[in-house]
């Protein structure tokens, strides 16, 4: 069988290599072609299982992913201890839609970076390597391999911010790297602990996802005489890395800086797929491998999610920089993912339908936020390219000069504030419906935030794009076709998911259903 996943992961890297030897003037085209082909191939991940005949159930779950490629890699034993690491890629519904989103956004990021003239070749190559790293994260089905790709993504990201960023780019890049590495150190500790605990417990050592998901650690660990449930400790260690990536309060302060300083395309990818790595890890690794730990931590998680939502919105209210405002709105919107996951794993004796609704909402929010925030950053990027400014108050009345950009920006803002008919609403609605059963107070806090969100997003729109034209900007031209292309493509996706979310829900159902079943088999806390 054709190794589709391996191709998807490494085709961008090959593209980066071709770039380095290819003609300098053609680097944009080479990058666009390689990422474009990757995107087209990635669609087969979705279409393949459908035409394969088994229908929407064919996307499979973590136990039986629709796509799977495995080669033994590192195998050695010392006494009874064994270290087994496989090159194991797999993709079920949850992976597939993130892989496609990553392929799409990487392609659009390259198109949207057509104007980059400073060291174009290296810039494009790094974007492609970043694509490889993120692809790997979303389809690694071996925990060590996952960690490897998790770290691979750091390097291009660091360089992209540090070289092509804004004025405080080095500060932002370092902050990003230190925060991430801080988290991934704990994550690695968690991975090793999980691997050896499970191996010792069952006598079989494997880091493959299906093994880890079907065998769970029991008992407690004792550290310095303090006894802690094994699964809770594992959950916390693993989650710390993901919490920073998500980002969850109070580990989010790297995000506004990184977003503000990063070049447009990098901001798009950062919001669009890199944050989703944290969300994906939370669902795929924390919840799947330590379900009892997840349940024990569900209440704090829900509280933190609600805080994320309202705190991010509160900070957005007073931002003066467009990118910073959108960055804080990201913090707020990623809170829905946390709240949704918490609701799905919560301790209450909830109807499983509501659990699944919440988890589905969280997953759709991953997709929706990626597309919508991608649009917002592209819009700001187009504006910044022309005006070299992001200060909201310095603009005004841009509609008169840039009607196309204004309309698509309005559209993106409506999607971001959760207007029904667009993708954000589907996600928020499902999260709320599910979480209201388990965590009513947190849900109400989250729902109140809708009002603040409408407030700050419309304020930005009003201040910058409507009203009388500030004569200082009378020379600006509207977005051209090349600049509009990524925006329109994402807009179509956002509208499509909003009107017909069924296709995403069908894709996710087998994967998420598996998790809900696992959660259902756990004892329910007597309340």
């Amino acid at each position: 069988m054709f190794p589709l996943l391996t191709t998807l992961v490494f085709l961008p890297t090959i593209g980066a290599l071709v770039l380095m030897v290819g003609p300098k003037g053609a680097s944009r085209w080479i990058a666009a072609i390689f990422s474009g082909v990757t995107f087209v191939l990635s669609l087969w991940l979705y279409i393949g299982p459908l035409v394969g005949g088994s229908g929407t159930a064919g996307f499979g779950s973590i136990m039986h992913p629709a796509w799977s490629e495995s080669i033994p890699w590192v195998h050695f034993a010392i006494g009874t201890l064994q270290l087994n690491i496989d090159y194991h890629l797999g993709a079920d519904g949850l992976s597939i839609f993130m892989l496609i989103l990553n392929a799409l956004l990487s392609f659009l990021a390259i198109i949207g970076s057509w104007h980059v003239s400073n060291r174009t070749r290296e810039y494009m190559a790094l974007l492609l390597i970043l694509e490889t790293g993120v692809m790997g994260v979303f389809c690694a089905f071996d925990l060590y391999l996952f960690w490897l790709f998790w770290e691979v993504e750091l390097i291009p990201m660091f360089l992209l911010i540090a070289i092509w960023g804004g004025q405080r780019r080095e500060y932002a890049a370092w902050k990003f790297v230190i925060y991430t590495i801080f988290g991934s150190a704990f994550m690695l500790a968690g991975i090793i602990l999980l691997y050896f605990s499970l191996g010792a417990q069952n006598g079989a050592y494997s880091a493959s996802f299906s093994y880890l998901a079907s065998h769970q650690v029991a008992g407690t660990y004792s550290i310095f005489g303090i006894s802690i449930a094994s699964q809770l400790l594992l959950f916390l260690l693993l989650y710390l890395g993901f919490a920073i990536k998500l980002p969850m309060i109070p580990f989010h302060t790297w995000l506004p800086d990184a977003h503000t300083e990063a070049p447009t395309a990098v901001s798009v990818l950062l919001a669009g797929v890199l944050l989703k790595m944290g969300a994906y890890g939370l669902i795929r690794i924390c919840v799947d491998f330590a379900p009892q730990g997840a349940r024990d931590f569900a209440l704090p998680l829900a509280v933190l999610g609600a805080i994320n939502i309202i705190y991010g919105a509160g900070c957005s209210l007073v931002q003066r920089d467009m990118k910073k405002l959108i960055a804080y709105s990201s913090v707020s919107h990623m809170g829905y993912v946390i709240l949704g996951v918490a609701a799905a794993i919560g301790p209450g004796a909830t109807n499983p339908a509501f659990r699944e609704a919440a988890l589905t909402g969280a997953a759709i929010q991953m997709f929706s936020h990626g597309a919508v925030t991608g649009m917002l950053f592209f819009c700001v990027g187009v504006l910044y390219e022309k005006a070299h400014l992001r200060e909201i108050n310095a603009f005004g009345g841009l509609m008169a000069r840039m009607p196309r950009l204004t309309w698509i920006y309005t559209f993106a803002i409506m999607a971001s504030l959760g207007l029904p008919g667009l993708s954000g609403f589907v996600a928020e609605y499902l999260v709320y419906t599910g979480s209201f059963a388990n965590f009513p107070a947190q849900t109400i806090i989250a729902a109140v935030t809708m009002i603040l969100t409408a407030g700050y997003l419309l304020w930005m729109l009003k201040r910058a794009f409507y009203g009388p034209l500030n004569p200082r900007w009378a020379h600006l031209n509207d977005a051209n076709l090349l600049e509009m292309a990524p925006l329109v493509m994402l807009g179509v996706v956002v509208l499509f998911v909003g009107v017909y979310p069924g296709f995403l829900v069908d894709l996710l159902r087998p994967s998420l259903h598996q998790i809900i079943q696992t959660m259902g088999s756990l004892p329910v806390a007597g309340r």
Partner: protein
Amino acid sequence: MLTLTPLLLVFPLAGFVILGLFGRLLPRVVVSTIGCGVIFLAFLVALGNFFALGSATSAGQMVSNEQIQWNWVTAGGLQIPFGLLVDHLSAIMMLVVTGVGLLIHVYSIGYMSEERPVAFARFFSFMNLFIFMMSLLVLANTFLFLLVGWAGVGLASFLLIGFWYTRPSAVAAAQKAFVINVIGDFGLMLAIFLMVGKFNTLNYSGTIFPHNGAAFSAGEMTTTAIALLLLVAAAAKSAQLPLHVWLPDAMEGPTPVSALIHAATMVTAGVYLVARSHVIFENAPIATIVLAVMGGASAFYAATSALFQYDIKRVLAYSTMSQLGYMFMGESVGADSAAIFHLMTHAFFKALLFMAAGGVIHALHGEQDMRKMGGLRSRLPITYWSFIVGGLALAGIIPFAGFWSKDAILSAILAQAQTQQSVGLYVLWLVGLVTAFLTGLYIFRLIFTVFHGEPRARFDHVHEVGTPMTAPMVILLVLATVGGFIGTPFADAFSAYLKPATTVFQDHLGGQSFATEIAAILVALAVGLAGIALAWRRYGRQPALFTTNTNPVYLLLAHAYYLDPLFNAAIAQPVLMLGRGLNTVIERWTLDGGSLGVAHVVNWLSRSLRRTETGYARNYALAIAFGAIVIVGAYIVAMSR
């Protein structure tokens, strides 16, 4: 015939998409043909539905009228279908929405004729979007898609209030309207969560249609909570206290928008919502009391606030709020069909009044300040007579449309007060009467000061508006005159038609004696006439009575009780301050400062430790010796234990 119902959504949506994408390329006449044509086609379908339904008589038949069913999302065991439902309530609503909507679309051809071609197309595109969303709101058979339409009309309203996007006041008004509408969406959403938690479905057939067994238990906490949350939604959409502050500002939009969205249709969505879910309110007595208080207070508040406005459209905006208050008052005593009847007649005469106001504004080149008008009677005869008829209907003077519907509400309140021997309901009735008096006063103050007396400012080329604008006005003039005859106390065809959709409450309503009805009619008529008489005394003969006034009551009313600045100071500013506080204290000082602090500590530690790396062998040897002594010592201590 009912199978054509989806076309009610398809036509306006098609208009929106075509005009939105290609409108700029099309000539003006094509744009207006498409824009009005799609609404005309939708109106034909609505008309067909209206008559096709006539034969169905029982509530049980409503569910069989669900038109399309499509599974929107299935998440776990939770199914969220999309479907349309035509019952007698939605049929009447659709007639109003598409019928009055069509007239206003035609009117807009004239009113917006001076806009640039691009803006002209944009206007019709948004108007069609509004009709689409409103149709979705009315026709949805689940609360979820009601919410979709609910938020969608909010979007259309936002886009149209801010239509003249270069005006800062228009843009600010648009933002305000949208944000307050989101508060309503929030209420509706929470109500939805409670309902889906209780019934596991959001279909009307599984929640509010009483014959399906999913009963709301009377007085239960959840039922009351759902009803109160629905009221939050209704208050925001229908501009009732305390969520009304957006409506007067919304008059920044073009006048056809004010007529269609902020008078005839969208603002009545709250009335529709309450009528639709009357089963819930019947079982939530507390919420019903809140509803009565909200309606009565809003009716009175708005009528008094309208008394001293100078802006011709603001008077009408407060008047709309006041009339919506009447509708909610009616619903609070279970007179849903009277409320819907008033909704319909109000759509006729208020659209007429707004169109006439648009005629004045158009003739005076955009002037909206009544202090600069006066003496326009002879120069704008059609507009003048439209105002007279609309004003008489609004003031509830026999035989105009508003008389019959307002009377139906007031007599229902009186009848309920008598049946229940409730002081509160008598008070509500009195509030209704006082408001009726104020209504006659404020609307004829407007008419006399604008049309009578001498002109107070010079305007060139004051002329009556053209045919596309007068034709709809004449049609509405007729409707506002005779439209009430379908619901007279002598032969109430209207509530007979609506009966299947409102069966339950009709049974609750005690026998309404004919004598009560006649008494209520006469009293209401008398106070309405008294209001007009007072207006004539004060403004009829000396209309220039606009002296500045320092009377505190006058100031309070002229500033609409200062609620706008109060809410700004009490809610908006504190929220912003909280955001500023979060951003400074927690974000910048604590979190960012904390992480930098950690970095500084690590930096300092490593610099301190670096001093120990001297590079001298003797220092290292000393350290090794010291370490050895410590280890040996530790062993000795351990052994000797």
